């Protein structure tokens, strides 16, 4: 089935906010990540199945508030016995389904149900601080966490420290509001949208 982004008519390319007389490399870069496979792995509470043998795209399931990643796939910790996988390999779920038996795991395809906004730039933390109550500065590359942004439930994936880059996941139905909140918070610094 064809995926249509929730930001299809919202996210526009160009420069916005206080971008004039600024070097392009100093601007925040905001983009949308779409057409990726997203699925959730939940291990049932009573399950004692060993997860150390599970590998998805050669990645282990990460520990608390951590992510594991390679160039195509990222796995984020969502809570105890709960992970989310984001991959540009759209057949990854089919290839890995057999690792998860129905007695111990529930796998749900969420590819259509998330909006992902990627922000890059030195001032990323300042944008996040405007709407998110967590202590952003203590999070580094390879961390991830759930929180809220202006009241909207989000997941933040801290992708790299240099350049500073994060991905913000929100529910699809809140995509437009989340995009508005993030871009509104970025206007002060000037941003390039692509």
């Amino acid at each position, binding site marked *: 089935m064809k995926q249509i982004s929730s930001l299809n008519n919202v996210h526009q390319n160009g420069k916005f906010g206080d971008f004039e007389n600024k070097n392009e490399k100093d601007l925040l870069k905001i983009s949308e990540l779409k057409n990726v496979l997203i699925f959730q792995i939940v291990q049932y509470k009573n399950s004692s199945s060993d997860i150390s043998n599970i590998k998805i795209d050669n990645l282990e399931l990460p520990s*608390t508030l951590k992510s594991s990643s390679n160039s195509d796939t990222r796995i984020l910790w*969502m*809570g*105890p016995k709960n992970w989310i996988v984001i991959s540009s390999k759209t057949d990854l779920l089919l290839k890995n389904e057999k690792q998860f038996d129905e007695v111990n795991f529930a796998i749900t395809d969420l590819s259509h149900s998330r909006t992902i906004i990627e922000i890059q730039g030195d001032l990323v933390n300042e944008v996040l601080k405007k709407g998110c*109550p*967590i*202590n952003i500065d203590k999070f580094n590359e390879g961390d991830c*966490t759930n*929180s809220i942004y202006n009241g909207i439930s989000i997941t933040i994936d801290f992708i790299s420290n240099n350049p500073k880059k994060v991905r913000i996941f929100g529910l699809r139905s809140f995509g437009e509001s989340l995009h508005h909140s993030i871009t509104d918070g970025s206007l002060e610094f000037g941003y390039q949208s692509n």
Partner: protein
Amino acid sequence: MLNIKCPYCGDRSQKEFAYGGDGTITRPKLNQEISDEEWDNFVYLRKSPRGKHIELWHHIAGCRQWFKVERDTTTHEIFRTFKPEE
């Protein structure tokens, strides 16, 4: 605004949590005969103590886990947070 330490995620703002009521209430055991009064007490009857109180909280915008908080209802000081099974 409270700062609550989730046993799974660490210190977070109260904005991420939902209050879940008295944490000392236990549901009557399944398949056990109980009177209407006992059931009524379980569903409705709550104490409203002034001072230390064990409460349930839900990290609804975080790891989505329920846990217990020992809090002073007068000063809002939080003494400890712990997993329900602890």
